[in-house]
């Protein structure tokens, strides 16, 4: 919108100028050159691979084979009947839910505190960067740190708990489905709540101050202005956080893979780990891996659309009232 109004005003100005200046060449075409590199790379590295993957999902390409033969929907039916694949879908959602719910709650809380003018906290800049810090460390290092923190039988956490008498024998955290899922989710939570909270703060700061002033004049409490003004106006940004986190969450790979390789009992084997193992390990079944990727794409698209729609419906209903 903004760019189109700018160009129209430029045109108006140009028309009013003397003729010799109006003869100046139209330089708009240069834009194409400057966006061209992006499109070239997009076509080669995003567009083409995506359609190639979809193509592979209908073939039998696996192992050392170099020629792909069409097999129709066979891969899709195989995959739908694959117990391990269905488990991996469930695992992915479990991990996402136990990571996202606490994450959005804490992020909202922090965003609320940091932007609250009445609290007027000191050193918010420092803490913002502190909370963001885990996100800067590479996943490989984070996995390594947590791997050794919780290691068995002589890991630091086990030693401390033994020392304090909390447990009598060391706990093998990575052998328990429950604690492994919890640790993976916690790492995801710990790595991303800072990011989420900063996005939410940006959203809160984008709300017109006069609304809060008016509310305060009307005698609203902090909590009231948060629930009645901040929350409703934060809808678009919350939607953004929800959708991006969901897409990221469905593609979760590095932390669970590096931590336990999907174990114990394949309890943190996510969809991406399944795809990776199919594509690069064992029989290197690129066809199955591609099919699983297509499923992931469809799943992401459908769920995102669903979330978008449910958000829109609610806002229109409210608007109608």
């Amino acid at each position: 919108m903004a760019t189109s109004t700018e160009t129209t005003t430029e045109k108006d100005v140009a028309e009013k100028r003397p003729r010799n200046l109006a003869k100046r060449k139209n330089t708009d075409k240069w834009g194409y050159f400057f966006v061209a590199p992006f499109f070239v790379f997009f076509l080669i590295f995003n567009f083409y691979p995506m359609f190639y993957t979809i193509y592979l999902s209908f073939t039998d390409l696996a192992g050392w084979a170099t020629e792909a033969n069409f097999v129709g929907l066979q891969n899709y039916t195989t995959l739908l009947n694959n117990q391990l694949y269905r488990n991996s879908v469930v695992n992915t959602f479990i991990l996402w839910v136990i990571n996202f719910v606490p994450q959005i709650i804490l992020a909202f809380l922090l965003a609320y505190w940091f932007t609250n003018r009445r609290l007027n906290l000191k050193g918010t800049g420092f803490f913002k960067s502190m909370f963001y810090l885990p996100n800067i460390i590479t996943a490989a290092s984070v996995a390594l740190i947590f791997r050794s923190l919780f290691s068995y039988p002589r890991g630091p956490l086990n030693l401390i708990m033994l020392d304090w008498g909390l447990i009598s024998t060391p706990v093998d955290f990575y052998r328990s489905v429950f604690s492994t899922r919890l640790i993976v989710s916690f790492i995801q939570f710990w790595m991303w709540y800072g990011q989420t909270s900063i996005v939410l703060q940006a959203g809160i700061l984008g709300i017109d101050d006069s609304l809060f002033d008016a509310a305060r004049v009307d005698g609203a409490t902090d909590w009231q202005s948060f629930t009645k003004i901040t929350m409703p106006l934060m809808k678009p940004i919350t939607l953004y956080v929800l959708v991006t986190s969901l897409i990221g969450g469905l593609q979760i790979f590095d932390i669970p893979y590096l931590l336990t390789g999907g174990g114990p009992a394949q309890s943190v084997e996510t969809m991406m780990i399944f795809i990776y193992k199919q594509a690069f390990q064992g029989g290197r079944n690129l066809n199955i891996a591609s099919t699983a990727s297509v499923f992931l794409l469809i799943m992401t698209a459908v769920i995102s659309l669903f979330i978008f729609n449910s958000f829109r419906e609610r806002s229109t209903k409210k608007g109608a009232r």
Partner: protein
Amino acid sequence: MLNKKWFLGLATMSALTLAACGNGGAADEGTVDEGTTDEEVVETEDGEEFEAPTTGGEGVLDVWTFTDEASTMINDYYLEEFPDLGYEINISEIPTEEFETQLDPVFGTDSAPDVIFAEQAFVKKYVESGMLVDLGQYDDLVNGAEATYEYVKEIGTQEDTTFVMNSWQTTPGAFFYRQDLASEYLGIESPEDMQAAINDWDGFLETARELKEASDGSVYMVSSRGDLNHPYYMSREQGWVVDGELVIDEQLYELLDTAKTMVDEGLMMDADPQGEEYFAAMNGDEVLGYSLPTWGMHFWLKPNADETAGNWRMVTGPTSYFRGGTWIGITQTSDMQDEAADLIQWLTTSEDFMTTWAEDTGDVVSNENVVESVRGDYEEEFLGGQNHYDAFADAIPAIDGSIITEYDQTISGAFDDLALTPYSKGEITQEEAIEAFKLEVQNLYPNLQVD
């Protein structure tokens, strides 16, 4: 004016494209095999950085390996011996866990290296791929390989008897134990007595129980299931897959039981194989012994046991086995096959080189004549003066290479993760363990007959 502007625009665009490519240098040479020599840094799973493998183009012999021994052997021995080769050797060293992911996509294409090194866990995958050069056409190599141990050649040979990969080393395994702990708690004073005590798995378990009683549970027999699975895997009658069908050998059920017994009775420390505790215990007084092969002593035990050095001894243990080993082969897409064959011939059959290599590194080589001639000359200080070479040499003839299959790495890994580990820790029943294992194998190899 207009032309100039067009030219500028195009130049900017192409410059941007090339810069982003990170491959600008090779673009204007115009040769057929341009190679990719730009240094690119990639990361392994553990975040360790390494340079992406490269191919040097025409007239360069590209070698892809996962072991630093390759560059030592080539730079310090091969190039010393033949300084006037007339071509360059370009060695790319890729961490073992990344080796296959880097090689597989280019294997069988023009971008593949000329010479590849492969480890026992995945060597058969490349041997059976049918994309390696038949070494049988090089008479000198075949003649030289006559003195190579049979099992080494067997592993490097395709099912249809085409000989495609050879190795310079053998990797018999042994049980390394702490003599000081053994005499303190078990009253065992010599490796011979130790071997007599743990000559079979029953004796092994009995000794472990005695040790537990005598030390009041403060000393474990072994560190982890990793000290049990390799000896057991190698004493199987059949490999993982026979005629396209998954085989679960009797030995594997015995392995499950032995491991579970040892965990249940507190006879093993139950650390993760190659985990922190596994290595840390090499310097402590909690673990009596480790099952390790030739290279395991040099690369794992020695560097982690500086405080306990000199107290270690080695014996064969309950069963003779081998673990690891490196084979070398030539890709069919190579444009320097003869040069590659020269290299392989020298590294894997030259008795002069192998003698020097054995003397310099203590590596147990694959040439029987060399092993016989040097085996008497060793005294390993780390083992309190014991002749490890002699002991390893004794173990070679018992090695059976026929049970190595192209499925080993994946299927053994699945067995460790889904059956051995959870069952030994008492998390699931034996049936559940086998079931989970079969499901995973079927999943990774849809074409195999499981059950």
